[in-house]
């Protein structure tokens, strides 16, 4: 099926979960990503159970600190 991830169309296996998508996307820190599906946040504890559907719009938001991060 097709998803729109970060504004880009991606083909993924049917009904993948959010957790599986994070793996497919090779997300570095899957435990610290904020995820929105169709403009709604998905709670981290629901990542493994939340199944995505055809044409879902998924946004992955990462922590970003700054330049000379001391203990970031």
């Amino acid at each position, binding site marked *: 099926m097709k998803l729109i991830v970060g504004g880009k169309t991606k083909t993924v296996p049917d009904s993948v979960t959010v957790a599986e998508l994070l793996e497919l996307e090779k997300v570095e820190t899957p435990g610290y990503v904020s995820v929105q599906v169709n403009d709604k946040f998905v709670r981290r504890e629901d990542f493994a159970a939340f199944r995505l559907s055809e044409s879902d719009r998924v946004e992955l*938001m990462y922590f*970003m*600190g700054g330049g000379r991060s*001391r*203990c970031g």
Partner: protein
Amino acid sequence: MRLTPEQVERYSRQIILEEVGLSGQRKLLESSVLIVGVGGLGSPAAFYLAAAGVGQIGLVDFDRVEINNLQRQIIHAAADVTRLKVESAGAKLRALNPDVKVELYPEPLSAANALRIIGGYDFVIDGTDNFAAKFLVNDACCFAGKPFSHAGILRFEGQTTTVLPGRSACYRCIFPERPPDGAVPSCAQAGVLGVLGGTLGVIQATEALKYLLECGELLTDHLLFYSAREMVFHKVKISRSPGCPICGENPSITVLQDEAPAACPAEGAGGDGEA
């Protein structure tokens, strides 16, 4: 206040803008912006806000200039190494525009001083580099009802959002809690292209000017993501989270607190360093 002929000349390129005019320029000269962290993000933001004639600019940073800052913290020069960052930056801003009153706070922003310092300004720019400081800026601005611009940079990417507390989504609506130390990559480990601070810091300054001039549409309820590698901006719609620990329906954070100090054996306790 009346603009002098020299001021009319200095700011002429923006005074001719319909959205600015003489009244907008007066507004800027009577406005104040606090910049927390005078580093990769804060340097360009401070320069442009001073150039635009924001009347008072506060600089918060307890750190001293180091040689590895100069790759991106463009307000500091080689001769400034070992100097307090706020002093180095303050001197540049005064030299650029004597209209600007520069206030220096050579101290870490903390729960003890944040509300007092932030309270004296119209708008806050978060130019900090670490998550303890970023959450503190968010929380202090939420408690003080102070509008602010958040930004972060890493490798070839950056992101930013503008927050009007109580009216638009805050940083904790997106990221409810601070990640444990070392859980997500930092610029010190993962690096950052110096220009990223410029791109994002100048967007932050733009938001401050728009807020002060009351023109345009602010970057509220959106997270703007920038990839320098792909040269793409991507704007994500964000909504206030009812479960937000600070601005949600049942906030769990009711008093301003410092995040637990970060253990950082190499460089001492984490504070409000800068991006």
